[in-house]
């Protein structure tokens, strides 16, 4: 095929075909428009204020590396006045993070940003290697995911930073929306569409500036800007690819690339229909008020990156998580299911365990969305998930494993 000229500058050869609109662009115009669109997301959602200290959740992977690079560029170009810090989590898996942490260390030099590495041992008293030693390899992704979800918040708190940005992209958001749709969990679906998460109870706000960026474009941006990133798989994750909603997303994209953003927009539209749930979309549609916060609650998490998203296999992880929740509910600790019933969700759900729950709870005082009484992290229960898992670990009770 003869070379195609760039649709914007009309002179350079097009190297990129954008999945969202099939526009054919040269390297320079693509990099410019990618950055412009992230800037648009940031300004229309009013993500930052001048002088704000912001921690970038950095794993050395493509998403967080692109996020760090773009934020540095935009911060300088548009004078956001942000104080940017790289925050990395070390799960304590021997050999696994060595290379990715080396990447983050290089990124810190390349982007002239301070770097803080926080270990699971520091945060929880357990490394993942020690967890696996205690509970075996089965179910350890749940521990890793739950611990990681809080790790960035806890790490930020240690640094006195109130805002953490993560590299979650449009594919991640679409995947979470689909998974919650498949589970019939509309309230969680609506929370997962928010660009800003974190409740008033939590002191740390979370946001995802790359929410509307295709994973494909993130990889291409990293490639064409020659960014230094690292890709690996968690060595404890047994089935990193199989049965994941990711595969579904990628297959949809193959047939019709716009499907990913369509799922994101559908999720946002559905979120608006869920009572009592704040929602957002691209804020440029005449919306002036800052985006309200929603509760951080992004599925089961799992292994794979410091962003709290797996390289795949989330479906399995989420199913495990559900089973865990149900198990806990049957033990009388769980109040979430009850709370959702009060909100009018799920009244038509004929779930056996729910019936059991409504018989067996409340054994302990119910808590609305509040904080964990042990660590202060936001939780709908007395103890947050991490503290509950830790309690089991600390008693060295392998039977709590999922």
């Amino acid at each position: 095929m003869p070379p195609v000229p760039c649709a914007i500058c009309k002179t350079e050869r097009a190297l990129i075909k954008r999945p969202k609109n099939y526009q054919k662009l040269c390297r320079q115009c693509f990099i410019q428009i990618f950055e412009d669109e992230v800037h648009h997301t940031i300004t229309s959602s009013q993500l930052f204020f001048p002088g704000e200290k912001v921690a970038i959740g950095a794993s050395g992977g493509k998403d967080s590396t692109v996020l760090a690079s773009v934020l540095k560029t935009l911060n300088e170009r548009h004078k956001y006045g942000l104080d940017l810090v790289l925050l990395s989590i070390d799960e304590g898996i021997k050999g696994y993070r060595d290379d990715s942490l080396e990447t983050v260390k290089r990124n810190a030099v390349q982007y002239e940003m301070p770097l803080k590495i926080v270990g699971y041992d520091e945060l929880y008293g357990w490394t993942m290697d020690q967890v696996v030693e205690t509970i075996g390899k089965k179910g350890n992704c749940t521990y890793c995911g739950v611990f990681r979800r809080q790790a960035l918040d806890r790490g930020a708190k240690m640094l006195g930073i109130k805002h953490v940005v993560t590299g979650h992209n449009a594919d991640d958001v679409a995947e979470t929306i689909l998974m919650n749709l498949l589970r019939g969990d509309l309230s969680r679906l609506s929370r997962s569409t928010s660009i800003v998460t974190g409740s008033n109870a939590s002191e740390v706000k979370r946001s995802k500036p790359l929410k509307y960026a295709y994973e494909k474009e993130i990889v291409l941006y990293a490639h064409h800007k020659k960014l230094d990133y690292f890709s690996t798989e968690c060595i404890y994750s047994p089935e990193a690819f199989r049965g994941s909603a990711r595969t579904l997303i990628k297959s949809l994209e193959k047939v019709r690339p716009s499907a990913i953003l369509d799922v994101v927009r559908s999720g946002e539209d559905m979120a608006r229909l869920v009572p009592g749930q704040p929602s957002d979309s691209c804020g440029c549609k005449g919306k002036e008020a800052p985006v309200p916060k929603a509760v951080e609650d992004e599925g089961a998490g799992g292994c794979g990156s410091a962003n709290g998203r797996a390289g795949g296999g989330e479906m399995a992880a989420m199913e495990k998580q559900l089973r865990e929740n149900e198990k806990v509910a049957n033990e009388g600790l769980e109040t979430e299911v009850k709370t959702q019933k009060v909100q009018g969700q799920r009244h038509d759900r004929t779930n056996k365990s729910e019936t059991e729950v409504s018989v067996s709870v409340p054994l302990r005082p119910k808590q609305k969305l509040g904080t964990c009484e042990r660590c202060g992290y936001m939780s709908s229960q007395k103890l947050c998930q991490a503290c509950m898992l830790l309690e089991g670990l600390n008693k060295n009770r392998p039977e709590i494993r999922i």
Partner: protein
Amino acid sequence: MSVDSQMSTGTGPAAQDAVALHEQPKISIVVEFSGGLEMLFSDQRRHSLSIPAVDKDGRPATVAFLIDYLCRNTMKDSRQELFVLEDHLRPGILVLINDADWELEGEESYEIQNGDNILFVSTLHGG
């Protein structure tokens, strides 16, 4: 007996293939893997390869031919499904032909030229 006859019919075409392969013109290309795909190819990012210029039917080697060739000859890992699904490249793997998205070059039907650089990048790994 039946085994014998199978073997004798089996060696004929195979031997012819070997001769044909030997006589075939080759093209030199560089194939690169990143985004985690390296682990399927001996943990090596860059492979300088000499591949047949035409397929067994005498048609010019395309990217589809290359993908099949890589599975048969270059991939050491048994998890082929991480690279190919249902006879096509696994969705979520990007291909850049001389730095251009393969969607601009005809995807699997692109005819490989001597000296081409073909990069496979997985987008499936953690962020």
